[in-house]
């Protein structure tokens, strides 16, 4: 079998307000594995979605062996032998059907034609054949809901190759896998490669990419940066290309006095999602938690705040042990969390600005018998709107109608009203415009200056470098490095975050 070359030329796509891809070129061929890498928001996933026919409003052309092809729908892509395994495996599987049914889903849906009855023997036989061909031992009659995450991934890979598969895109496949499971996945990748399948591998874990891939394409800010053969490049040069020129973020000067240890965690575990996390934060200190998406930052923040019920390990405040069994208890112990999923978890989108500001500390706005003091509540909201610079028509506006940056200011402002001791920020600048970002940094710095302890978790390393006093780097649920800001830089942080040393 000869090699088939896939080319994407000058692909551009725009979404309301963002140019997600800008004249991107991408070339790969069957029988090799190709790494696609870039920082968050670089456009890797968008590019692959274009290739899979998820969008139809892009410009540019796609060619297979020099022949122009038209990919405007997932069906187009599949007919050309382009298959993808998305990161969220659960969205692509039907949990209460068997492994075999899931593997053969496409065939059952589109190839049955006029036949009205399902041939069960055929489904089980075919599925078993596919599973055997990649040497995966999952019983075809087992329900998908009973599988582990990595087994689900295998089922999806099996589904992809059950049909004509020339190119297989794996979107961050290793993020949720253990080391052993990752090795199993790599075995399959190598196996498929030897059978003349082209693998496109999206990952943040550089060490892995260097182990498994032949070529690497780097993207940044929706643009193509470079394409090289893996043997001709190094991890450090890829990191440089990913970061590009350093963005000049405007971080306010931090003059806070770092005092005694306020918060300490000792061997915090959460059901395998975080592993023996021990760290401490002083008063007036901003501690950065760096790490890639899926490194366990969010899980750590939630474990601290009592969101997860299965946390073990100790949390101490000023040397006194506290138990945050629920967020309610955490708030009482002086914790505040600004969660990552703003619209889902951070603000009450259907409620007014006033209700949002007072939600975490409603007890301060009461008259006798738990009656609400509407006047006091609305005065406080007006005060916060002014001091945080929230752009809203009035304090009675529904939060849903405000921009992302203003919503985030409200999510933070809620905890300023509540006055906590430990402020935990999880990706607070996600989806926030530049102006609002600066305001948020100023707010966070001001908290430290008032003697609060701040934990700032982000995968934006430039932000971590800009705002933190001290940094912990997380990888695979563990803290792998603790550094002072003055002793490190973005490149080193990225190296640690990708599993390097």
């Amino acid at each position, binding site marked *: 079998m000869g090699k088939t070359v896939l080319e994407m030329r000058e692909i551009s796509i725009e979404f309301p307000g963002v140019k997600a891809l800008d004249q991107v070129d991408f070339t790969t061929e069957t029988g090799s594995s190709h790494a696609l890498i870039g920082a968050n928001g670089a456009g890797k996933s968008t590019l692959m979605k274009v290739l899979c026919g998820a969008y139809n409003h892009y410009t540019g052309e796609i060619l297979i062996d020099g022949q122009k092809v038209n990919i405007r729908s997932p069906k187009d892509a599949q007919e050309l032998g382009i298959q993808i395994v998305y990161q969220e495996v659960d969205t692509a599987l039907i949990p209460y059907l068997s492994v075999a049914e899931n593997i053969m889903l496409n065939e059952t849906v589109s190839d049955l034609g006029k036949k009205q009855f399902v041939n069960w023997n055929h489904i089980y036989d075919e599925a078993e054949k596919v599973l055997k061909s990649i040497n995966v031992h999952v019983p075809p009659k087992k329900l998908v809901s009973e599988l582990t995450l990595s087994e689900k991934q295998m089922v999806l890979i099996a589904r992809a190759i059950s049909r004509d598969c020339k190119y297989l895109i794996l979107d961050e496949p290793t993020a949720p896998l253990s080391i052993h499971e990752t090795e199993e996945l790599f075995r399959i990748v190598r196996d498929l490669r030897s059978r003349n399948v082209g693998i496109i591998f999206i990952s943040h874990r550089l060490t892995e990419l260097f182990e498994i891939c032949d070529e690497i394409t780097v993207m940044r800010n929706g643009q193509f940066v470079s394409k090289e053969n893996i043997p001709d490049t190094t991890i450090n040069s890829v990191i440089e290309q990913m970061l590009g020129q350093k963005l000049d973020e405007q971080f306010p000067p931090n003059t806070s006095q770092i005092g005694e240890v306020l918060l300490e965690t000792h061997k915090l575990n959460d059901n395998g999602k975080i592993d023996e996390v021990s760290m401490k934060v002083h008063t007036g200190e901003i501690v950065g938690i760096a790490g890639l998406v899926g490194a366990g930052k969010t899980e750590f923040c939630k474990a601290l*705040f009592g*969101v997860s019920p299965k946390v073990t390990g100790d949390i101490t405040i000023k040397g006194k042990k506290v138990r945050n069994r*629920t*967020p*309610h208890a*955490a*708030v*009482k112990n002086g914790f505040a*969390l600004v*969660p990552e999923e703003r619209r*889902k*978890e*951070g*603000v*009450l*989108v*259907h*409620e*007014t600005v006033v*209700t949002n500001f007072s*939600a*975490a500390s*409603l*007890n301060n706005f*009461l008259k006798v*018998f*738990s*009656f*609400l003091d509407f006047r006091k509540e609305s005065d406080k909201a007006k005060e916060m709107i002014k001091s945080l610079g929230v752009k809203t*028509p009035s304090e*009675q*506006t*529904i939060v*849903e*109608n405000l921009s992302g940056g203003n919503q985030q200011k409200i999510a933070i402002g*809620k905890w300023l009203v*509540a006055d906590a001791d430990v402020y935990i920020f999880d990706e607070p600048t996600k989806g926030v415009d530049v102006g609002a970002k600066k305001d948020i940094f100023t707010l966070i710095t001001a908290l430290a200056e008032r003697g609060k302890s701040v934990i700032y978790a982000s995968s934006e390393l430039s932000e971590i470098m800009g705002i933190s006093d001290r940094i912990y780097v997380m990888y695979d649920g563990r803290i792998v490095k603790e550094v002072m800001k003055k002793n490190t830089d973005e490149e080193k942080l990225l190296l640690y975050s990708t599993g390097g040393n």
Partner: protein
Amino acid sequence: MSTSNTDTAKKHGTGFDFFDFMYKYGTLILIVLLVIFFAVMNQNFLQTSNLINILRSISIVTIIGVGITLSLSVDGFDLSVGSVASLANAVVISMFVWYQQPTFIAIGAGLMAALAVGALNAFMIVKVRIPDLLMTLATMFIIQGVALTYTRGATISENMIMSDGTYAEGQISPFFEKLGQIPWIIIIMFVAVIVVHIFLTYTKHGRYMYVIGGNKEAARLSGIPVNKYKVLAYLLSAIFAAIGGMVLASRVMTAEINAGGPYLMDAVAAAFIGFAVLGAGKPNAIGTFVGAVLIGILANGLVMMSVPYYAMDIVKGTVLALALALTYYKLK
């Protein structure tokens, strides 16, 4: 809190928006139109005695409906209220007739029985995590059966023949008898509506319940004890269902088989119609009352026009479907 008007104004630009207007005032306009229509068709409709009659007829629906409103406010749903009303009805009458208990013990027993059901609902929903609708569907059957078993499948009434052949000696107290009569039945209804309205709109607890109903996860991450309030909602829902059942008991002075059952659908309809009243966009006590008024007027007017009672459910169901259409089309 009239809060949802800003966003529609934005969506549709300035100027008069017919749909938004209908969403807010549709129910009220429909009530006025119905009143005019029935008044024209039958002169007796607008007589004071008939209006009072309507209020009396909707009072039990309204009382049970505000209970459902409370469970809806935390984004829950309590289908067991009809059965709870039957149970409370049976318990309170049996306390008088079988056991010759004084009024406060009879009423207390009815409330305790309801609280037990509310606690069961709350435990299974909050701790075992069965979806609200399904769990309360199960309790609906269970409690219907419990009430039937308790009354041995028979109607309880004064001077009934007991299983040993003697007559029941207990009497229903004159005080209890008054609860189901005008004006007390109407007063109880208004008190229930006003208390729930104040509770939901002006107290911390009501605010928390709406916040939980709007976004459970965000509420939890704001430090609100979500489970505690869900439990509270189901207990309160059961209590209002019990009050409804006991008022019913007082009105008919007997405990019929599954007497509370038919009130479930009317109360649910009233609560959902109430979503849209004055553009509230969420469950609210005043809206539930207006919803009950709408259903009551329809039923009363149609009976006066000699529409047979067995066709009434067609009309009620249609009104509910229309109200739901308004609410969900708006939410889209």
